[in-house]
């Protein structure tokens, strides 16, 4: 069953987008929001089978009014968590270490970290890698507490939302603490899309540790991490990428069955092919 692609014509959102070639037209978050607006009463905006109740429904943070939901059933959360675990492993983290988060608990970057954080997730990314996990509330006012976490808990890595970098750096400075020599790397994400390279450079300067970017699109269950070597986003084998005519890239998440994510347009990007020395067989995206 796992390898049989879902019949997209059964899903109202895709049915309305089916092309002659039997594939749905690539879509964006705006398309999803538009579908939601015109189909009130369907929280999944036509991407879940009518009448089916998923075990896990996740409100997409990046969607405006009305918020759109995604749906997951086991083992999909586990498949998504594996993506996260492979991303962290690529950046380097060892069994027995701790990873810290400074973001909302509802972010997939946090949720998928531990089987504690979300129901019906067997093993989160930290469980898989043998890590401990701690999350600080993702609001700027809690930046001093994050600095305290670094001091007391000593995480080896920190994952945070891009807008919290500056308050976190200020809190570290105010408390006389530094990440250099304590934290090996930090990773930053926007709620949707990818932080700019320039912002990552600034973040690295402010925090004093390498800062990697995360490509995040919750509607497509997409998480991809920047490679420390080639600085492109290594695309986990769970996803398939295709180039679109206008210099854009569409992503399909192979594990998403309850709420298929097929041909999600992540915007301006380039498929750079394989060949990074770190993971020679991984597809790469440049954006």
């Amino acid at each position, binding site marked *: 069953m796992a390898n049989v692609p879902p019949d997209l014509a059964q899903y109202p959102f895709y049915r309305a987008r089916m092309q002659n070639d039997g594939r749905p037209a690539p879509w964006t978050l705006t398309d999803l929001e538009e579908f939601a607006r015109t189909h009130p009463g369907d929280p999944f905006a036509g991407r879940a089978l009518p009448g089916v109740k998923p075990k896990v429904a996740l409100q997409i943070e990046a969607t405006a009014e009305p918020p759109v939901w995604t749906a997951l059933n086991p083992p999909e959360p586990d498949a998504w968590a594996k993506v996260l675990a492979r991303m962290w492993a690529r950046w380097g983290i060892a069994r027995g270490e701790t990873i810290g*988060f400074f973001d*909302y*608990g*509802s972010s997939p970057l946090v949720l998928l970290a531990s089987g504690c954080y*979300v129901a019906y997730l067997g093993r989160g990314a930290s469980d898989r890698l043998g890590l401990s996990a*701690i*999350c600080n509330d993702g609001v700027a006012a809690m930046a001093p507490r994050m600095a305290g976490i670094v001091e*007391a*808990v000593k995480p080896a890595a920190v994952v945070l939302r891009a807008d919290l970098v500056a308050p976190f750096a200020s809190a570290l400075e105010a408390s006389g603490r530094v990440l250099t020599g304590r934290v090996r790397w930090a990773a930053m994400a926007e709620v949707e899309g990818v932080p700019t390279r320039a912002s990552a450079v600034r973040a690295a300067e402010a925090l004093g540790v390498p800062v990697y970017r995360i490509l995040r699109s919750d509607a497509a269950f997409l998480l991809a991490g920047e490679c420390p070597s080639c600085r492109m986003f290594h695309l986990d084998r769970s996803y398939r990428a295709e180039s679109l005519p206008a210099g854009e890239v569409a992503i399909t998440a192979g594990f998403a069955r309850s709420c298929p994510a097929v041909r999600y347009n992540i915007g301006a990007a380039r498929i750079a092919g394989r060949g990074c020395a770190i993971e020679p067989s991984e597809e790469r995206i440049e954006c």
Partner: protein
Amino acid sequence: MLKPDAIAAEPFDDLDRLSPAELDRWWERKLRAVFKAAARELPYYAQRFSSAGFDPAGFRTLADLRGVPISTKSDLLAAQAAGGSNAIGIEYGVGPGSAPLTLSLSSGTAGTTFITHTARWRRLQGRSSCRAHWWAGLRPGTPLLISAPAWHSYAAIQPFIAMHFGMPCGIVSGTFLPRFADRIVDAMVAMRPRFISMFLPMVFSVLAAAKQKGVRGDEVFAGVESMVVTGAPITPGMRDHLRQLTRVKRVAEIAGTSENLLAVDCARADGLHLVPDTCHAEVIDRETARPLADGERGAAVHSSVVLAGSVYLRYDGGDIAVMNHSPCPCGLPSPRIKLLGRREDSFTIGAQSLLPYDVQLALEQEVPELNGSACVITREGLAEGRLRLLLIEPERSPAALLEAARLGLARKFDVPVEITPVRDLPLRFKGVPPILSEPEAVESL
């Protein structure tokens, strides 16, 4: 739909069928084992027990709790500072080679301590919380809305509850702040849960967000059979007020601490039953450490009765409470406790030491029309020995109601009272009045 009495009569498991005396004996056995293991395996307690001359081998009955040293958050923070680590020697089942952990954070402004969760902690605390939620009226059948942010220990509990009862879950984006209330409104309309738990001020934020969307409060809460509020003690009037606003038949209160204390209303709503499988609690006189009689106000001191993750033994988290050991008509064996407020929020006026809860309660008792009213207690007034309130002006007969309240409070507390009507107050002040300086109150508008 089950009626409240039917819910109360439906035990979660055999522990609910014990008599109070049997439960005491059960607690004694559990605590004896915990104290022995703590002395043997948890360095923090080994040292403190030894310093206090407490020998767990001599622990026989709950009366022997008096010999167990009390810990406060200051003690934990000091241990944390001394060791330079979140791990302070209260963590059970943790060490080199142990399975991955999650850590959550204590709440409050007095500093952050860390609560260690092991898989065993999650299983035991999760089951205990299932009992609490069952008592509060949770029944499967609709999704459970997960709104606890991951920094809080409840975030590790809610998913367990969903899985225990086989409930689907809906994860609301953002965090538990009023500005995300519109997301909760959307979630409630989309998921139509039968049961919901909410931080008390968030209820008002949700209602305000619904109003902005042109949706009535009772429409948002349609289908909710039981709503649990937490984070602040609710008065009977506030409970009625919430019922009226939401049309939810059962409004229950859950009280607790991140560090293990857990208590919840039964359907009688006459005090919160201790959830016995993970915690035991006492109310003591802080000066003398003497246990207080039922109804006497003192420090809530609680002990974990399970060994898993961070273990808190005779922990005084700064809550002021009253205990009630009289039998509850619902049949649950555990005593009832009401957390009335935080010690740092208590104030002395006239001859009395009061909590903001007392003011809220007195207001509704003196003038029932003011049930659920939001107000601020001003520091300036307290400094001058009078109770000065900024209170949202009632819509009907404001002058008469405020004068009745002023007279009633003055009579009750035997102090001068002044009430200034204001047009509005921030939603986060609804529930239990904060103590603020007047500029702070004005700035917050």
